[in-house]
Structure formats: structure tokens, C-alpha cells
């Protein structure tokens, strides 16, 4: 069994409505950790090995832009984070193929998407060589500075 995005949203809203700061859930080898940002611990830096599928839950009573919880449970994946706040686009132009798909091979300097800040386009790069395992950022939606865009299995 695996958790869907909807399941995670539901679990997250349970935490948000509760008086607790942290929730650890283990189901059949899958581990989910949610935390309010006020209770956040220091997180491992990009590039360090991760052994769980944790993600800090954002306490966001004002409609969150999109709930993006990572689902890959694999160890050793590298988080590719947004270098700045802006609107994330997966392709150079609407209708054109995306820069990368799940399964794409990327180099450290490969462009993986575009971040638009007030009509200025900035390219986001992988920063690591490997294979794209999961894409978390939603095309056309805003991402924050430091938000995880995708997960890469380093090679």
C-alpha cells in the first residue's frame, strides 16, 4: 500500500487542526514525518542522504498554493531546490516538451525548469548528475525560495 497525495493532505490537515507539532506515521515500511514549521529541526542540506520520506508541513490556514508531498521512499535521493521564489514552468514555452520528465538523465548544469519572477525568466538547474525520480513542483504554480522542485537519484 502507498499513500496518495490526497491521503497526505488529509493527514496534514489532521495535524494542523490538532495541538501537536509533529506527527510520525509508519505504514508497511513507508515512513511519513510531518512537522509544523515553528517546531522545525535543522534539516539536512541538499545533497545529503535522506532515509525517510519526511517533509515539513507548512502551517497554512490560508489556502496553500499546492500541497506537494514527496512520495519516493528511496534512500539517497537528492532534493533539487528552487533557487528563488517565482512561478515554476517545466517547459520553455507552453506546448513545448518539458525540460525533464521522470526517468530523464540530468547533468549538474542541465536546465530542469524555469522560474518566472515578475516576467523575468530564470533557469533552474539540477545541480547534480543523475536520474529524475520524482517531480514535486507543479507547472504554472508558485514555488518558494528553497522549495523542493524534484528528486534526483545521483549517479
Amino acid at each position, binding site marked *: 500500500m502507498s499513500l496518495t497525495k490526497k491521503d497526505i493532505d488529509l493527514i496534514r490537515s489532521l495535524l494542523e487542526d490538532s495541538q501537536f507539532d509533529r506527527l510520525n506515521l509508519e505504514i508497511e515500511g513507508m515512513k511519513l514525518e510531518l512537522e509544523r*514549521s*515553528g517546531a*522545525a529541526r535543522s534539516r539536512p542540506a541538499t545533497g545529503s542522504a535522506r532515509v525517510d520520506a519526511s517533509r515539513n508541513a*507548512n*502551517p*497554512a*490556514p*490560508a489556502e*496553500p*498554493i499546492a500541497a506537494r508531498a514527496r512520495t519516493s521512499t528511496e534512500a539517497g535521493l537528492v532534493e533539487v531546490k528552487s533557487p*528563488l*521564489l*517565482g*512561478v515554476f514552468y517545466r517547459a520553455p514555452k507552453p506546448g513545448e516538451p518539458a525540460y525533464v520528465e521522470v526517468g530523464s538523465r540530468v547533468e549538474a548544469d542541465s536546465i530542469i525548469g524555469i522560474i*518566472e*519572477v*515578475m516576467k*523575468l525568466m530564470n533557469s533552474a538547474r539540477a545541480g547534480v548528475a543523475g536520474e529524475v525520480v520524482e517531480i514535486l513542483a507543479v507547472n504554472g504554480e*508558485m514555488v*518558494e*525560495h*528553497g*522549495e523542493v522542485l524534484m528528486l534526483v537519484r545521483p549517479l
Partner: protein
Amino acid sequence: MAIKRILVANRGEIAVRVIRTCERLGIETVLCVSEADRGSLGAQLATRTVCIGPSQPAKSYLSIETVAQAALGYECDAIHPGYGFLSERADMARMCEDEGVTFIGPTAAQIEAVGDKLRARAEAVAANVPVVPGGPVGSPAEARALAEQIGAPLLVKAVGGGGGRGMKLVEDLAELEATMAMASAEASAAFGDARVYLERYVAQGRHIEVQLLGDGAGNVIHLGERDCSVQRRYQKLVEETPAPNLPSTTRATLLDAAVRFAARLNYRGAGTVEFLYDVAHDEFYFLEMNARIQVEHPVTEEVTGIDLVAEQIAIAEGQGLRFEQADIAFSGASIECRINAEDPDNRFMPSPGTVTDVAWPSGEGVRVDSHIVAGAKVPPFYDSMIAKVIAHGPDRAMALQRLRGALANTRIEGIHTNLAFQQRILADPDFARGGVDTGFLARMVERETA
């Protein structure tokens, strides 16, 4: 248009201050945070937070495009810029105007009108508001002629400077030409603007400013004055209202002049007109207008009972002024001390770090505006002010007594602060008498180190 969600584009105590008023008004807040401020008190209090960039302010709190994008992305009706950072950036206000987001502050044109010192001075002259004798100079011959008119001592000031930066004292007019050349070269390097102007040097001056609210249609009211003469290197440390021992006729003409200046600009929002009060001549001169909420606004709130942030929001919503001048009543006196994370025993060096424990004072007439709680981090990237301790009383003596008591009951562990230094200021007999000039603090420090 009712504002339902505000992007708070600032940090520290003013972010907390804005969020508290929004909470009371039922307005949602989206707080911009840099990486360094993710765990701040403001981040915990805001309806939600958005990380806008790394710790360096140039890439986060000063990034106009990022702040505008965050406001649009989170569907905020308005941006509150606080003070500092983007609060007096005309391009921020203009981008808001273009994107249909309400900028809680004056128009871009008004920010430009008061942001350029020479233009602001010309506006003051046009509004029949007295200015310090002086003016812009180009050629050395022009400068000599004007300098002889003004008389020595005089100041050479950079048009692009401010807060004490970019000015030089000329005590002997023979040094004028050399000093001007140096000032101009320095101004060009520091501010990218080589223009300088000359000004009479007031030997004994007090810094007195007037709090204003304008509706943007020519109606302006004042909420009294503040005396901010206790300064260290042009940084205010203690502010109070009313200005002690100021002749009442001078006070009345000063308040009128400030209102006249802002009304002529059809000023919108909260703003402050700063004057230099020449003690020896009992005259005042226009210095500049600050087109934003000020750090020291709480003393005005204490004596008037008016929430200035709420009025900023009401004006931004188009409600205009909710008070007439006659509605503004002044009750007692209020004094504020700025608590900074700095080490007075080590040349006031900034003292960032983690506040391991803190106890803020409370009690009748005592107010603390701060974002510091036990465990809070004071990052090295930003201004060192960590709190404002404010006391209000039926008269100045009582306000001062309460403020002394409040500071005695304040404890901040883990970082150096100027708390003890502030206590010495409040204990000084000259300060207790009231009406000290801007040279007071330097003299006090000199006495202490002698």
C-alpha cells in the same frame, strides 16, 4: 475596497507589530521571510509565511520583483512594507500600482517627491515651511557666494546621503573648496550621486518630528510631535512625546508647518516631517519627510490612543481619515527606548546570536514591541534593534519613572545589548530635566569614559 489579505514585506518587531493589528482587524497575513527568519516569532504569528530568498537582504527583503511576485502568487490585496527595506522605494510602489496590488503607503510620485533631498527642500520652500539656510551648489564660485551668505560653521551634505552619512563640517570658509571636492568625490563613490549642497550648521539643535496622516486628497491631520534628540551617530535611541520644554507657540507653528507641507503634496498615508529645532534662536527648519511608519510610532499611539497601522490600512482601503484634527486628544507623555543587540563596551559592535532567555517587563503604562522570545535568533544580516520598550504616564515624570522600572525588570541573556546603557541615559539628570539637544549623548559618553 476592503483589504482581506496583506503581504507583510518586512521582518523583526515591525512585522510582528503589523501582524498583531491585522489579527485584531480580521485580516490574513502572509509574511515574507528570508532563510534566516524562517523560525522567527513573526513566522509563527502570521497566517502563513513565504520564503522569499536567502539571508542576505539584497536577495530577499530588498528584492522588489520577488516581493511583488509573492503578493500576486498568494493573492494578497495589499503589501505592508514596514520601515526600512522597500518602504520608501518608489519603484516598489509603482510596481504595486501597475499590478493592482495596494501599496500601504504613499504614491510612487510622493515617495519620489520627498525622497530626493533637494526636491523635498524645494517643496518645503514652496509650502512656506522654513528650511535651513543653504542650498545646492555647482561651481566653486557659486559655493563661495552662498557660503558667505550662510556664514560659518556650515555643513557640506551629499544629496544622496542621509542618516548622518555623507556630510562634512566646514568651520573655516577657507577650507570650503577642498572639503567640497572631497565630499563630492565621496558622495559619488558611496551613493552614485556626486551632487552636494550647503547648509547652516546648527550648534545646538534638537530633532523634533511631526506624525501625520493624509487621505491622499489634500486632507492632513497631525498626531503631535516627537522629540528624538537622544542620538548616537545620528541613530535615534530614545524618543518621546510631547517634546519637553518646547515653547507652546513654537510647537503650534511647527505642527502647522508639517501639515502644510504634506497637504501641498496631497500626501497619502502615515508620514513624518522631521525638523531641526535651533534652540538658541527658537527657530525650526525642515529636514526631511519620511514616507512610512516610523520605528518610534508607539509613543504617539500611547498618548493619542490611535493605532497608526490600522489607520494606514484604512487609508489604503480608501476610507480616508477616520478622525478630524479636533478628534485627536493627547493624554500625558510617553517615552521609548530602543534595545539593540550591540555591545556598548566594545565600540557598540553588533552582537548577533541566540537569545537564550528573555524577560520583558509589564505593568501599568508599559508596552514592549519585540519579536524576541527565548530561543530567538538575532541574525547578523540585519539591523541590530531587537525591541522597543515604551512607557506612558499622565505626565513625563511618571512616564520616565515607569520606563526606568521597566528597564530594571528587563533581562536578556545570550547576547550583548545596550540595556544598561539605556538605563544610564534615563538616569542622567539632563535627560530627566528634558529637552536635551542632539549632542547630549556624545557628551554623556565622553564624561563616562573620562
